Structure formats: C-alpha cells, structure tokens
C-alpha cells in the first residue's frame, strides 16, 4: 500500500501541480481536478482503507490510515482526506446503525459522497461542550439545531455534515460520562439555516465557518441510538488525530531531506553549505525531531490498537501535541536553513511548513489536552 500511494502521489500530485492549483483563480478547474483525484483515491481503495468489508472497505485499521496519511504528508496532497476519511467516516462506521452505515459509507467509499464533522468549539466559555445545541419539539418529533463552529476543514467540499451536540439533560456534566453521552445529527449541508463562510487556509486548502440557525431535523437524522454517540466520536477523533500525526511525520520527513539536499548543492564561501558543522548539527537536531515524532506516533498507534482505555486517550493526545510542536520547530528550522529560498512561496519548503502549522493546530492543537 505504501508503495502504491507513494507512486500515485509522485506521478499525479507533484509539487508543481500543487503550487499552480493553490495559486489558481479558476475555482471550477481546481474543483474538477479535485474530483478526478478523489475518484482515483476511491478506485485505489484509499477511501475505504480503514473501513470494514461490509461497507466496501478493505478491512484495514488505524495502521492502514497511518501508512496512507504519512505518504499524503510527504506529497503535501491538498484534498480533504483527513476530515472526511479519517474523521467523519469513522464516526459513521462506529456510531451509525447498520442501515446508516450502508447508506452513507458505501457511496463514501466509492467517492460519491463527502462528509465532515462539526464538533465543539474550544473557544466557548464553558470549554465548548455545548456550543452547538439541539432542542426537541415533542409534538412534531423534530429537533432544532443551533450553534457555531469557526473552523470546519472540508466544510466547503461536503454534502453532509455530522453535527455533534451534548446530551441535553447534562450539558455541563464533566468527565467521561458527560463526554460519552452525546448525539450526532446528520444534516444536509444545503439545509435551511446552515450558513457557511468558506475561506482559504494557510496550507492552500479550504475550511469553513459554519453557523446553524434553527436547522430542523427529524428523528431519522439521529446517528445511531439516542445518547450513544460519545464513544464513536471519541474513537473517530483519536483515529483522526493519529492520521494527522502520521501526515505530520510524512511532511517532516519530506522537509528534512529536501533541506539536506538543498544544503548539499548550495555553495557559499567556496564550500557546500552541508559541509559546515554548524549546519550539520542543526540537521542532526531535525533528524532527532523527526525520529522522536515517529516514535511518538508508534506509541500512540500501539495504545490505540491495544484498547487499554485508561492510557489510550492520553497517549493519542500526547502524540498529537508532541508531534505538532516538533513539526513546527522542524518547519521553522528548515526555512532558516534554506535562507531566502525558504521564504519564497514558489518553493516547496514553505508548503510543507504551512501544512505542518495547520495540522498542528487542528484536532486538539498545541496546548496540552484537557481530557
């Protein structure tokens, strides 16, 4: 799988194409290209790499996701695989009824349906657990969703949103119970009251700010059983955090060797810069960052697969924070080592750096986790 992903990325998602698409003002052409890539991802089985066979997946686990995302990171692929495949699809797989899994995941694996998750806002006053709420109307058996999320990666590309809301009776209940008892509603991204503002992100991709203003859904929109979404949400979030760790490791790896090669061919003062020990030591530091990050990823993966509940969440959160920080440090140093060339937007190093910065703050960010 690693070799296949690597080959496709090298042939079809080369840096020049990425640069041109990021700079392009022709939104339609860029979208058409994205659709072609997405279809190819589906044909090669990437979209179902970590989904079970009964929905068309290949039965892989988070380990397959890690391999896939490490390669995507190395190639700085700019498609919304992380929010759709590593996060939302996992929520549906773990939280949906048999019928919902079949109805949603099969087209998703075929590349025909894109989904994103809209979850708590970390900025909100009480820590964000109820920044989105659902109010039930018993007479009509419907729910009204209200709330706000400032950054939804992939929000502009999807046709369905999974909206996560707290268990209404215990909005401020702390700890595992409060988190576990959540509901997720499946909402048409075009529904009345879904207000979306799309914006470009640092890494040349897109995200959306989404406001839900009295969005009406009925009981069939509930994912899985009432009050049972918390566990699926936790599982999927940790899966996505690990996928994003793997993507960062791939980007760090790509950026380290790019920098090494640049210093090998760049000559000043009559010598190749790579021969200067001051710079060799800096590269050695970056190698240490990379390999410690990779080790932290393995630790997270092993805890996740091991299913030892108490340590699992902590290990995943630690991996995400550690690798996010380490990726930023490596990125900053790689720019410095390139000199002026590192600052040029037309050069590859900056694209790696900006993807690393973006991944570092999504899905939990750089601050220590509060769970």
């Amino acid at each position: 799988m690693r070799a296949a992903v690597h080959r496709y990325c090298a042939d079809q998602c080369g840096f020049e194409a990425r640069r041109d698409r990021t700079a392009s003002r022709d939104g339609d052409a860029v979208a058409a290209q994205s659709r072609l890539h997405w279809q190819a991802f589906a044909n090669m089985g990437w979209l179902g790499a970590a989904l079970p066979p009964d929905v068309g997946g290949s039965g892989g686990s988070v380990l397959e996701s890690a391999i896939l995302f490490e390669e995507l990171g190395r190639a700085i692929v700019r498609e919304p695989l992380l929010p759709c495949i590593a996060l939302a699809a996992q929520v549906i797989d773990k939280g949906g009824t048999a019928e919902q899994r079949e109805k949603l995941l099969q087209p998703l694996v075929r590349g025909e349906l894109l989904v994103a998750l809209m979850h708590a806002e970390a900025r909100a006053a009480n820590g964000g657990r109820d920044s989105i709420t659902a109010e039930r109307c018993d007479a009509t058996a419907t729910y009204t969703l209200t709330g706000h999320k400032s950054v939804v990666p992939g929000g502009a590309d999807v046709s369905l949103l999974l909206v996560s809301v707290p268990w209404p009776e215990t909005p401020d209940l702390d700890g595992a119970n409060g988190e576990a008892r959540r509901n997720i509603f499946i909402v048409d991204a075009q529904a009345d009251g879904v207000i979306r503002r799309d914006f470009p992100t640092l890494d040349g991709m897109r995200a959306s700010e989404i406001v839900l203003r009295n969005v009406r859904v009925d009981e069939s929109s509930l994912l899985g059983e009432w009050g049972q979404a918390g566990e699926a949400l936790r599982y999927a979030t940790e899966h996505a955090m690990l996928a994003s760790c793997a993507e960062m490791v791939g980007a760090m790896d790509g950026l380290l060797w790019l920098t090494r090669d640049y210093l090998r061919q760049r000559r000043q003062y009559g010598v190749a810069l790579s021969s200067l020990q001051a710079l060799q030591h800096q590269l050695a530091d970056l190698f240490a960052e990379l390999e410690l990050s990779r080790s932290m990823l393995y630790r997270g993966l092993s805890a996740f697969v091991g299913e030892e509940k108490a340590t699992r969440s902590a290990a995943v959160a630690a991996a995400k924070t550690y690798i996010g920080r380490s990726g930023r440090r490596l990125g900053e140093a790689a720019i410095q080592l390139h000199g002026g060339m590192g600052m040029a937007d037309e050069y590859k190093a900056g694209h790696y750096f900006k993807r690393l910065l973006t991944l570092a703050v999504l899905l939990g960010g750089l601050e220590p986790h509060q769970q």
Partner: protein
Amino acid sequence: MNFDADPQDEAFRTEVRRFIAALSPEIVRGKPLGYTHSRPEREAWIRALNAQGWLVPHWSRAWGGRDWTAMRRHILHDETCAAGCPEVDRIATDLVGPIIQAFGSAAQQRRYLPGILSGTEFWCQGFSEPQAGSDLSLVGTVARREGERYIVSGRKLWTTQAHLADLMFALVRVKIGNELQQGLSFLLVDMRAGGISTRPVLTLDGGHHVNEVLLEEVSVPRENLIGAEGQGWTYVRALLESERSSAAGIPHTKRDLRRLEEFASSELRHGRTMMDDPVFRAKLEQLRDELHALEFLHLRVLSATERGPRAEALGCVLKFRGAQAYQRVSELMLETLGERSIEYVPDSQRSADEAGVAAAYLFRRSATIAAGTTEIQKNMIAALALEL
C-alpha cells in the same frame, strides 16, 4: 554610561506624543497587524517628520542631524511605532543616506539627500543575488566601463521594495576591457533606466515584499559611483552595522507584546482566558524580560560609547536575539488564536489584528534571515568577541 530616567527625556516623550496626536489621522491612523502602508501614506509621514526636524537626527548637522542621545532616538522610534505610524524609508535614511554623506561627493550629496528628506525618492538595496547570499564576495553583477558610463548586467534577488523604489544602491564588479576587478564597487542606479525589469517574489505570507531585479545592459553614468572602484566593501561595513540595529525591530516587538496581551485577555480556551493559563503567562513573562534586556542592549549599541570588535559583536547579538524576540511574539499570537490562526486573509482584506497573525508569523521567519542570518551573526561574534 547613564540610562537613568532623565526628566528631559520624559518631556521629549510627551512632546512626541503631542506631535503625533496633532497630525492628521490620515497619516498616523493605527493599522491592523500585518498591514503594509502604501507609498503615499509613507511619503506623507516622512514629510511630517522632516518638517518637525525628526526624520534623520542621526545624520550630520549639515543635512539635518541633531546630535541626539541614544535615548532620544529610541524614544522617538518607540513612540511612533506604538502609535502605529507608517515606516519611513529606512533603507534610505539608515543605510544609503549615511554612506552618501560619509563617502559621496558634494555633487552626489546635493543630488540624492534632498530626495530622501522630502520622501520623494525611495531606495532599494541591491546586494543579494541568486548565487551571492551570505557570501557577498560572490556578487556577479558586472559594470563594464565604457567611456563615461558603466553598462551594468546581472540579477539581484530578494530586493525589498524594488517595486516601489526610484533608486537602487547596488554592489557590482567593475570590468575594464577584459579585466574583472577583484573588489566590489558601490553604484547608484536609477530604477527607471532602460534594461531594468522587476519581478515580484511572493513570500510565505502571500505578500509582495521582495523582488527579483534583472539588469540587462543598463547604462549608468560614471558619476553614480560612490567613492572609488573596488572599494565598495569598506563603505558597506559601516552600513551593515546600522542595518543590524534597525533590523532588530525592538519597538515593533514591544508594540506587538501589547497586542498579544489583548488577544490573550479575550481569547477563551477550555473555559478560561489564555491570560489565566499559567503556562502561557510564563511564556509571556519570559519574552517581556528578554525584551527589557534587548532594549538596554539597543541603547548601549546606539550610544556607541563602547568601542572595538567586542562592541561590534554587541550589534550582532542585538540583531539575532532581537529578530528571535520579534518572531517569538508572533509565535505566541499564533498559539493564542489556536485553530483560528489557519485562516488565510489576503493583505488587502485584513481589517482586524487577528486576521494578520498567521501572515505576520510567516513573514517574520525572514527576520533571522534578512540583513545577515543568525548563523552569520554567530560567526561574527565568534570572530569579533571570542577571538576564535
């Protein structure tokens, strides 16, 4: 050396504040983080400062200098920066202006200095080239002598504000007949001369700050040479020293520290403000202390009471640690905004400080590269101060 609070200095600070307050808001209106003032905005500010006699206090008296103390110069920069005034053309006032005064002919001084004082002529610095970055001895732009003119060909890279500039001071290598000179020469070039083309080089923040300047058989009068052929490096040494202290950006970091505190006081994370987070607080205090130390180092460097190689090394410390502090404040802003920092807002659409945070962070990665990289500053410290 005495940096005790002097009542005259405090009176001067008040005077500066009053001066700024009395100016038209068109000139000094505070702009959001990451905003780049337009050339007309900068010109208006330069005229106002010059009318007050404050544009070039460090120049010779004959050209408007004031013999100010280091503290006064510092106060002026500090206050104008805090008020969000535009930047003057420091490439002109701090780099080429002093060189023209020290090494230029009387005719060159009459030709070029008034344009700097009136803000009508902007300058750019054409030193770096694709193959000559840290090592400027590799400059390959050639000025072929033909009668009373030089015919200049070459390629300059990373040239800040070349797209706004009227004039460039360039390092070139003079060629007479078939012979290329060893030493570099310091030549003034009219940016409107035939054969010059400028291409934007966008930086990581998406902004247009630097350029590639192609010179193809550009004809430059011989009278545009500063000093003697092959002696350019002796003139440049003094310039690099002054470039280092203005590149340290201390007043900007001070101003941004206040912005950072504002963000952190209103930004909530997991139920409390960032300001209430002890880990964040500790980072902030560390930066504040670093800045205090840098400010006093800056005063030591400006006052120039310490001399010799070791004192020159102080300028190198100021440059790289100052640049790191300037980066650090933007790193903390980025951390404060969390995931919202990833929104990319184009230059022209930034209306609030927070919209410019990511762009500022990204562009500031260049603070430890431009005007001599951190590694080069350390090499110089090793040689000058540590005698290695």
